[in-house]
């Protein structure tokens, strides 16, 4: 539509504003709740403006943690650090492994190459939950329970990322690989000097997705860790709600939710410009 009519512009803006409000309002309420005393938010009407407990709530949560038995007094910064380590290892590990797997599948002729590809591809249909019992058995037998290795290694393989890298490599002209061969670059040097720089936007996009995936892991860390030292923030929130004979400390829970949201948001904001670049730059 080429015409510009003031009331159409207005309509568009109103629609957008309603959409933004619908997404933002629950987050606002969460934030407001995290700044009050528990009794304030349990009485109607729910406050819609921040209270006085912002600093008190957040500093208590971050540095001393909740005292209820299941949360066990682990400070939230510890849980956040665990989550961060787990998410980073998963995201980086997945990217490294799948980049190399896709490189092998696309650029080398070895026996059962296609069989290997289809095997990887088929595991796309098997999420962690499906194979959780055998995986747990393997990790337990290897003595990796209650460790960062146990938290991350079973999640490192990624069919999705391998597939995405493969599709990207297939769009890189063969002549580029041949030119590099002529220029005396062996396979590894070709990967490092040519393929890796060309893949930066793909890597950034995958990093965002995989980091969020790792950060949001719930079931696996819950099974894997009994030691509170390895508690991640997502399972920590669940533990905070899970209290006997009393009301959960909702302001603290809400504060934990707000804090747990921040790292994935930060990653998206920082890497956003790479996304756009990846979408705009089609030329290889």
């Amino acid at each position, binding site marked *: 539509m080429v015409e510009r009519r003031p009331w159409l512009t207005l309509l568009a803006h109103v629609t957008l504003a309603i959409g933004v409000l619908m997404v933002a309002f629950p987050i606002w309420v969460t934030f407001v709740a995290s700044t009050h005393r528990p009794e304030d938010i349990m009485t109607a009407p729910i406050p819609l403006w921040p209270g006085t407990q912002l600093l008190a709530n957040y500093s208590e949560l971050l540095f001393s943690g909740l005292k209820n038995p299941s949360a066990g007094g682990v400070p939230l910064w510890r849980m956040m650090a665990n989550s961060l380590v787990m998410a980073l290892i998963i995201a980086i590990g997945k990217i490294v492994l799948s980049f190399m797997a896709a490189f092998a599948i696309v650029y080398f002729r070895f026996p059962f190459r296609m069989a290997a590809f289809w095997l990887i591809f088929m595991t796309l249909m098997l999420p962690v939950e499906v194979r959780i019992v055998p995986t747990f058995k393997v990790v337990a037998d290897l003595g990796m329970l209650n460790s960062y290795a146990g938290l991350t290694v079973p999640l490192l393989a990624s069919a999705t990322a391998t597939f995405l890298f493969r599709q990207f490599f297939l769009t890189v*002209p063969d002549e580029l690989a*041949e*030119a*590099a061969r*002529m*220029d005396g670059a062996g396979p590894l*040097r070709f990967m490092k000097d*040519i393929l890796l720089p*060309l893949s930066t936007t793909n890597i950034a996009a995958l990093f965002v997705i995989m980091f969020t995936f790792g950060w949001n892991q719930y079931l696996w860390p819950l099974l894997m860790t009994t030691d509170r030292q390895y508690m991640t923030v997502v399972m920590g929130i669940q533990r905070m709600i899970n209290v006997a004979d009393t009301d959960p400390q909702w302001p603290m829970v809400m504060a934990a939710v707000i804090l747990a949201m921040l790292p994935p948001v930060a990653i998206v904001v920082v890497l956003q410009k790479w996304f756009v670049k990846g979408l705009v730059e089609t*030329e290889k």
Partner: protein
Amino acid sequence: MATVALENVGKVYPGGVEAVKGVTLDIPDGSFTVLLGPSGCGKSTLLRMIAGLETITTGTCRIADRIVNDVEPADRDIAMVFQNYALYPHMSVYDNMAYGLRNRRTPKDEIDRRVKDAARILAIGDYLDRKPRALSGGQRQRVALGRAIVRDPKVFLFDEPLSNLDAKLRVATRIELRKLHERLGTTSIYVTHDQVEAMTLGDRVVVMREGTVQQVGPPLELYNKPANTFVAGFIGSPPMNFADVSFTERDGRLVAEADSIQIVVPEPMRRRIGRSTGRTATLGIRPENLRIATPDADRSNAITGVVQVVEHLGAESLVAVDAGGHLLIAKADPTVAFASNETVRLTPDPEALHFFDSTSGAAL
């Protein structure tokens, strides 16, 4: 500087397709050799085997008297220019040219000197900091050339390097390639399907068809003395006219005949054809050697036909004439007007007649 010698070189792809069939070819030192043929004739495969990008199934390939069948492309001392340039998109022009040298651990100042030299020859000195994306097609082609030049290889390989350029630029770049070759004197092998490129660039042209070499020679030899109907039809534009004729002896002269065609075979040609009465052959005559004669010209040495279409090209006109079922093209003076369905008589230049065996297609 080096010779390239192919001995009985063949390529069979894993699917069983035989792309190149026993090619034996000597490429002299410093020559500019063009591999010419229609798509699928095996010319690119042959080039890629010389480059080392395809394995050689049978035979041997020698570069500078060294058998290179199992030598990596980078160690063959060759450089290749690809059809789509194959520049590294994330590197600057300078880095594109320097990459190969850096991989060989050439000293930094030596790299700098060579890249600057090549940039000066190719007039791309102003773009050294740009990315390939910011260059036009012609400039990218120069960078691809520069990448080959800085290596100072024994042999240059070109895989249809001009086919992505527009017509005007193609002509200009063709001339520059020729000048560049004269300046550097490096043995060059050039693949193309464009016969004009082959004729203008090469000092030797190799015509290929279905994986075999049809004829090797200087461009004019291919034009004047094609070895068979394929070469005759492939070189020259518009292509050579063919007609099936039979020979008869008449008044002591040998005449090639068909419906509406009667052509006296000149004496030297007659000796080559030998015992001939009753024999059939394929007559070949180029459009530029057919003259449209006045109606009262000698009927005993002419082709009679009906004008079908006239194409005006400015400098000349192409007249399509139906002569007893054979459609013949003649180049004509553009000032003479022809009407459709007008009956005309064509007289061939007796020096420029070609006869080919009707079954094998080989020149008589």
